[in-house]
């Protein structure tokens, strides 16, 4: 019995020692080794999508009429300037490849401060089926980290996300990385106050064959979706779940599980994937994203359909 106790004691001591070596080694590696050679750290501050600027701005924003949530199809499809012209103050909390695991964290962090009358949740099948790894890097690198993001890293069971979380915590608390300011114009994109990202006008040349997609549900995502809906419903905000326009060659199966669930809550799903007034080439810059001409038309339609009562 004594030798087992010795074994366990020494194992615990070794674990503490190796955790210390791991943390020091990971941070040293992240700082010294060029990004190209790093396999399992993906700290991407100021990556495309302007999440860093958006998350900074939201901390100084309160009391809006509309909050938009979702992936790049959210921050590129709902322009607060257009809704502002109609008298609605809005903020776009979309982030690159956002899945419900990240939506949930953003809702928990900011929904009470923003206190919106409407929450627009822009969804598409990938949000339900994705493992949520890619979008975690964006959130962990560009917003603050706490137990919620640690829980996210644990849930994903992905060493890259966990290492990035550790490195991001070091950058945040030791190097004050969150104070760094992002350039609001990068390549073809410009950040617009209120969370929107405007792309320099171009049209879509990228046609492909019919792309059949099924609504597949990753259980982790589904549970986060359900919790997010419940959290939003606890506020006074009206929830609008919508699929914004996409090129017509995308074909989907029927989202039966989603519809059944929304039905049980008396919620509707507004599918605006194929809008007659939008052209696959003229109003998109790629198969999944509207250009500014498309955004103008779509936002006008969206306002009239949901707010012009």
């Amino acid at each position: 019995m004594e030798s087992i106790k010795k074994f366990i004691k020494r194992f615990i001591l070794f674990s503490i020692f190796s955790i210390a070596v791991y943390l020091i080694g990971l941070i040293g590696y992240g700082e010294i080794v060029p990004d190209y050679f790093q396999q399992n750290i993906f700290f991407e501050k100021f990556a495309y999508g302007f999440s860093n600027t958006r998350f900074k701005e939201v901390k100084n924003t309160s009391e809006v009429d509309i909050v938009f949530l979702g992936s790049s199809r959210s921050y590129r499809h709902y322009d607060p300037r257009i809704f502002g012209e109609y008298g609605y103050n809005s903020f776009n909390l979309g982030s690159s490849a956002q899945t419900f695991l990240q939506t949930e964290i953003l809702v928990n962090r900011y929904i009470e401060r923003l206190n919106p009358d409407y929450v627009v949740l822009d969804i598409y099948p990938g949000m339900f089926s994705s493992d949520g790894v890619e979008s975690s890097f964006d959130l962990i690198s560009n917003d603050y980290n706490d137990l919620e993001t640690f829980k996210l890293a644990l849930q994903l069971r992905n060493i890259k996300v966990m290492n990035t979380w550790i490195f991001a915590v070091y950058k945040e608390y030791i190097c004050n990385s969150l104070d760094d300011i992002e350039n609001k114009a990068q390549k073809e994109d410009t950040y617009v106050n209120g969370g929107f990202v405007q792309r320099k006008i171009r049209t879509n040349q990228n046609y492909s064959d019919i792309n059949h997609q099924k609504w597949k549900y990753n259980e982790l995502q589904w549970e986060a979706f359900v919790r997010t809906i419940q959290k939003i419903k606890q506020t006074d905000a009206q929830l609008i779940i919508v699929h914004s326009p996409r090129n017509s060659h995308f074909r989907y199966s029927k989202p039966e599980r989603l519809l059944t669930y929304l039905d049980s809550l008396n919620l509707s799903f507004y599918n605006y994937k194929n809008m007659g007034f939008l052209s696959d080439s003229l109003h998109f810059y790629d198969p999944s994203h509207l250009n500014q001409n498309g955004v103008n038309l779509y936002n006008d339609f969206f306002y009239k359909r949901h707010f012009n009562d």
Partner: protein
Amino acid sequence: MLFNSLDFAIFLPIVFVLYWFVFNRNLKWQNLLVAAASYLFYGWWDWRFLSLIFFSTLVDYFVGKNLGIVTNKLHRQILLWISIIVNLGFLGFFKYYNFFLDNFISAFSVAGYDLNANSLDIILPVGISFYTFQTLSYTIDVYKKRLEPAKDFISFTAFVSFFPQLVAGPIERATNLLPQFYKSRKFEYSKAVDGMRQILWGLFKKVVIADNCAVFANHIFENSGDMSGSTLLLGAIFFTFQIYGDFSGYSDIAIGTARLFGFNLMQNFAFPYFSRDIAEFWRRWHISLSTWFRDYLYIPLGGSRGGTWMKVRNTFIIFIVSGFWHGANWTFIVWGALNALYFLPLLLAKKNRQNMEVVAQNSLFPNFKEFGQMSLTFFLTLIAWVFFRAENIGHAVSYLKGVFDPSLFTFPYYVGIGFSVKLAPIIILFFIIEWLGRREKFAIENLVYINNNKVNWLIHSFLILLIGLYMFSSETNFIYFQF
């Protein structure tokens, strides 16, 4: 439950603590805990197949029990055949039914007859080939009176389902493992520490070497039609490292885990890529399966007795059966036959037992001759692995044709080549550690010769850091689970 998963990282310490602190006073209870933990471990994949293991256990336990009582030769033979038919029957149905059906239909269609029969949608139970062979060894040994029948059902259940080696070996001989369930186990500090180190090294081999090589090997094999000869050769090298890292890594984790519970499992890999000929390779690769076939197939067939023709015939039989054991595909059969062909010259020249010692036993580097022999053996196994990995025979042949093409002398290119270059230092480090540790049971057993805990801790922590920085980012299955 995968060894390389968070579930197992939680499961193992819980079972360890229960085993040594709660159930330690009573051997029966300890064995019961091992059996229950093993069923939980296995049921984590698919609980429905637990009934299959349980049924096999039940049949073999009663067959063994009766073999201990019955003296009539015919009755004893009937009992043995019951065990063989039940075990191989399950294996045959789950693993080979569709293969035989498809080939039967194809054979008739060649003769001009069209048969209509549909393949069944059969899921292969994880580890069935391993535990089937393990239980067969029990009944055969009891039948041959090399082993007493199991003393109690709980010990026997724990032996059949012992979780460290249940799904991918080592395929333990009943004569080695079963008696260990009868004796009370004493915790040995040094043995447990060694076990932990072996687990660590196994994990490194699996999640860093095998899983990363798998990405490139899969990409190159799946797109082999578009690749140059040099790229295809590199793809085969990646697979060679992948399969070694994956399977020997699993074995290391299994053996190390068993040591934590006071059990000794047999060594399954002994640095096979440092072999000087194919015979030596097969003494060092998947040792538990090779020796199983030697003891239960080669020797009963007559072994080396009965002249050259018998030896050649028996050698081909065990290599082909061994290939077929891996999977219901002609590629495995050709892989086995190819290895038999490699083995043949050594057998005929009676040189198959010439390299029994570890290469470069007393020196740091091999001499020129040894280096040449190792390179040739590595190259021959690499060619054979192409059949093992390919989707079908046609794919393997076209892959090898692609290798031996003038483009073999061009610079390799594939998607992610830059990424694989980053891994090169890790693979080289791995190779050096394996070389330095080739005299041991596992490479890092005596890596640090200094008896200094701080240095040891630092080196092992560095290994953990390397795992964290270079492991493949998500949990992946072991290749041998499909066999």
